[in-house]
């Protein structure tokens, strides 16, 4: 039961990753890409959750914890850049 769900989750997350990636590529603006990057981080948290379930090793949750923090930090950084006028008009 759980194995199947894990497999299915992996598949769903992989597809989601692909979709997000498309947004990352096509943009069109920097904020769009940043959102996509955020989403990738969130998906990574998801991957880690599934992986924790499938492997039974909980140590990887720490990675997810740090990931949640830093992805936010990156977004803040980008937002700061964009607000200052960088990277949108002459991108």
């Amino acid at each position, binding site marked *: 039961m759980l194995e199947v769900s894990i497999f299915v989750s992996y598949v769903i997350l992989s597809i*989601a990753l692909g979709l997000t990636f498309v947004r990352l590529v096509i943009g069109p*603006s920097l904020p769009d890409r940043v*959102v996509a990057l*955020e989403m990738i981080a*969130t998906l990574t948290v998801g991957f880690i959750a599934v992986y924790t*379930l499938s492997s039974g090793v*909980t140590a990887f949750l720490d990675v997810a*914890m740090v990931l949640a923090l830093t992805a936010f930090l990156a977004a803040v950084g980008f937002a700061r850049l964009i607000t200052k*006028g960088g990277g*949108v008009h002459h991108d």
Partner: protein
Amino acid sequence: MTDVVVSLFLLIGAGFMFVAALGLLRMPDLPMRLHATTKAGALGGGLMVIAVGLEFFGDVAVAARAAAIIIFIVLTAPIAAHLIGRAGYFVGLPMWSKTLKDELKDRYDPQNQVLLSPGEVSSEDKPDRDKAE
């Protein structure tokens, strides 16, 4: 029993993740993409982490970490969305053509980084501003 619950949380979470990703791709402008990722992403991630917490139910370390992750996601996702959303808005990214109204329009002065409320007068009209600034 646990397996079923865990699977449920996991699959629903993954489903929301998918929705978020698809929304990100399909939505026509930045704010709406943010709608998708902020809500569905946070919820999906949260549910999946809850699934982990349930699977290792009773293990304080896991529970604490799961809780921390969820709190973190819930805490940061809307802030990030706000930051990116406003940034995108202020630098003038076009909104979807079918947007009904925009009360924020022309309220932001990037020079002074002042955002006026609807009734306020634009700062340039205020006589007492220090011109040297």
